[in-house]
């Protein structure tokens, strides 16, 4: 006869198994077809045209596709486009769509969808605005042909359509692309490799492989170009605002990939044999300090320019990333090193020996009379806080009277929009980081604009810079672009609307066993387990 205690134990075990059954399924083959990703931040805004947030751009590349991709040489390459034809001295451009492209709702992608999407994107994007200004007609003569009739040739047209810096020219159905670009679209229907399934704000975002997606048949997948072959049925973003929790989740195997591990936690992750760490984006992030050109002392370009002699990019980057020189680079000018327009014009002002006493003397000679410098310092982002601390110290060393206004980034963004004098609630300078993608040419780098009141915060007036920028749009080839880039860099270092503070690279961490991760942005095609 069986013991009643044993029977009760069996009963309890059976009950526990029943209760646990949903969890047990998680370890099956199905789970291995799920990629669990921890993004750098929550996906707050879903429409990639409304915001320039990086998380939204990465989400955008999952859901939507682009007419042109961006390859490892930082050049455009047809993606949704089958090819194009340029005629009439570059004034007539015909783009032919690939066959069989479909939206997630089953509707075919038509040229009319592309025309509406280009119009909506162009209203927000600086390169797009130039394109629109030169466009006499943009039309869809048939379902697979997009026609651009320009008043002036625009050699950067394919660069504009391919560029991965936000906002990206994603193709949406015409009915959605008709939405005001300042308002989010009502549905998330794209023709990208993943279908959007759900989002619980602050918690998770879920995508499923789009079965009808047709990858390009040829080419090599790099950045956002080439065939986008998907090897996971499902991609889940798990939002973890706490870095230590994200690190623990990756170490415990509860997540596959953490986009941006914090510097403090990287040594422990590197020691873990189950985790691989690498730098996916060779362009990284560029730090800058932006001046308010409306008010003293930085309304005088001479004062701004003299401060270039005080900038020690080594000190700024060490404060941001630490001593590991493989994660940062100094001697950074206007364009990110390694990109086609990077050059050394005028760089001696940044690379020569630093001499604070000389800078102090030059400031005095240039008319700096001890005006207060109101420095906005974001305290909720460690990288920005580090820049501000080193920046304040640098200014004090050269004899400037600095008042540090510390606050959350959201509050500082409001203050930086104010054009009042610094002592009346305005500001003199603030620090920020931009991705290298946002600075790789004069068309996307908003900080180079010199249109005064209409320019980016700081509002410098730089007519020569605007001329050079216009010439760059007309540059017929890379050589001409590079020649102009040298002039633009020299002008940028002469006018100094901002000071470059160095470049750092963000490592990413993922479980050993994942392969095929592409350089550049966190995208979910090509990557596979095993």
């Amino acid at each position, binding site marked *: 006869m069986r013991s009643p205690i044993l029977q009760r134990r069996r009963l309890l075990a059976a009950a*526990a198994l029943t*209760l*646990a*059954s*949903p*969890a047990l399924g998680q370890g099956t083959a199905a789970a291995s077809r799920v990629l669990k990703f921890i993004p750098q931040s*929550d996906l*707050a*805004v*879903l429409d990639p045209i*409304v*915001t*320039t*947030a990086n998380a939204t751009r990465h989400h955008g590349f999952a859901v939507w596709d682009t007419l042109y991709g961006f390859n490892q040489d930082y050049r455009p390459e047809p993606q949704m486009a089958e090819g194009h034809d340029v005629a009439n001295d570059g004034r007539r451009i015909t783009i032919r769509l690939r066959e069989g492209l479909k939206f997630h709702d089953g509707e075919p992608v038509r040229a009319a969808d592309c025309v509406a999407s280009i119009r909506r994107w162009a209203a*927000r994007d600086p390169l797009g605005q130039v394109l629109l200004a030169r466009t006499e007609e943009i039309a869809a003569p048939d379902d697979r042909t997009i026609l651009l009739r320009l008043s002036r040739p625009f050699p950067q047209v394919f660069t504009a359509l391919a560029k991965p810096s*936000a906002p990206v020219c994603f193709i949406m159905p015409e009915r959605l692309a008709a939405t*005001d670009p*300042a*308002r*989010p679209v009502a549905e998330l229907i794209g023709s990208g490799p993943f279908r959007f399934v759900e*989002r*619980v*704000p*602050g*918690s*998770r975002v879920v995508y499923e492989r789009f079965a009808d997606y047709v990858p390009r048949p040829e080419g090599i997948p790099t950045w956002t170009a080439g065939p986008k072959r998907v090897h996971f049925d499902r991609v889940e973003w*798990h*939002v*973890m*605002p*706490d870095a*230590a*929790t*994200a690190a*623990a*989740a990756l*170490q*415990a195997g*509860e997540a596959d990939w953490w986009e941006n591990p914090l510097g403090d936690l990287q040594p422990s992750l590197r020691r873990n044999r189950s985790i691989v760490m690498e730098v996916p984006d060779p362009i990284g992030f560029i730090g800058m300090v932006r001046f308010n050109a409306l008010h003293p002392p930085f309304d005088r370009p001479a004062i701004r320019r003299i401060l270039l002699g005080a900038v020690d990019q080594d000190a700024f980057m060490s404060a941001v990333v630490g001593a590991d020189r493989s994660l940062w680079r100094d001697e950074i000018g206007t364009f990110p090193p390694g990109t086609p327009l990077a050059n050394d014009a005028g760089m001696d002002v940044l690379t020569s020996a630093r001499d604070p006493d000389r800078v102090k003397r030059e400031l005095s000679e240039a008319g700096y009379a001890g005006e207060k410098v109101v420095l906005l310092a974001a305290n*909720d982002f460690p990288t920005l806080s580090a820049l501000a601390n080193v920046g304040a110290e640098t200014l004090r060393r050269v004899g400037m009277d600095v008042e540090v206004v510390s*606050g*959350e980034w*959201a*509050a500082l*963004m*409001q*203050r930086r*929009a104010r054009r009042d004098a610094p002592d009346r609630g305005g500001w003199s300078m603030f620090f*920020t980081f*931009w991705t290298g993608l*946002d600075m790789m040419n004069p068309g996307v780098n*908003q900080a180079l604009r010199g249109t005064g009141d*209409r*320019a*980016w*915060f700081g509002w410098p007036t730089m007519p020569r810079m605007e001329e050079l920028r216009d010439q760059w749009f007309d540059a017929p080839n890379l050589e001409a672009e590079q020649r102009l880039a040298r002039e633009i860099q020299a002008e940028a270092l002469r006018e100094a609307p901002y000071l470059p503070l160095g470049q750092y690279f963000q490592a990413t961490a993922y479980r050993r066993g994942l392969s095929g991760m592409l350089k550049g942005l966190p995208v979910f095609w090509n990557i596979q387990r095993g």
Partner: protein
Amino acid sequence: MFAYIVRRVLATIPVMAVVALFVFSLLYIAPGDPAAVIAGDQATPEDVERIRASLGLDRPYLVRFGAWVFDILRGDLGVSIFTNLPVSLMIKQRLEPTLSLMVVTLILAVSIAVPMGVIAAARVGTFVDKFVMGFAVLGFSVPVFVVGYLLAYVFALELEWLPVQGYTAFSQGFVPWIENLILPAIALGSVYIALIARITRASMLEVLQQDYIRTARAKGAGLRSILFLHALKNAAVPIVTVIGIGIALLIGGAVVTESVFAIPGLGRLTVDAILRRDYPVIQGVVLLFSFTYVLVNLFIDILYTLFDPRIRY
């Protein structure tokens, strides 16, 4: 009693009105611009202005407040500036994790802290009493996030007994649900256990010196019966009060605990909304928390009558 409850419920209306006015005004004058956050760093001032206008953030204070109050009276908490989702839906999505965390913490805390306090009072001055009080001091002193990280390191990363983070809905099974809540509940409950244990001990010490306890002892009642049947019931009023006050402590602690254990609850919703200046969400969540707190206090007041029949409303 019924009339009292109705009176108290009606009294919440002016309280909520004051909370609403206060929260709206505070957010209005607080620095920060959601339009700039949405537009992103590279956006031009023109882009930011266009987004601000499309969100209606350029309207005057009274117009915005009036529209909000009108919506609230119709039961509409508005739409999130960032996610474009109804605030009520966002709260609904986050309610279960937070409620689960609070209920498990409450059960855990009360079932550990009350016996601890009773035993400490019964063994006053002994090693057991000192141990309990030492534990209470530790519970008060160590921040929730430190306890959380330590628990996650030991029980999730090293021993691999429990998950590091996340939340599984109750509908997906009791075991995965409770597995995800054990560590956060212990972390969040540590302060709460300390608080309740100390109050229980103090209250019990006072009651144990009463004449009727001496009488019970003289009549030969057992220690367990004296402590839990005679003394605890009479010591319950301050304990219940502290448990009620502690709900506010739990709400505050949930913000940290939910971040440490990546639980998608109301605490994190609030923090995220504050950082982004998502005004409708902040207003909705604060109203909900205030309403909850008022109701908890009412419930505690009613509980008094069960423990002490002399209390009448």
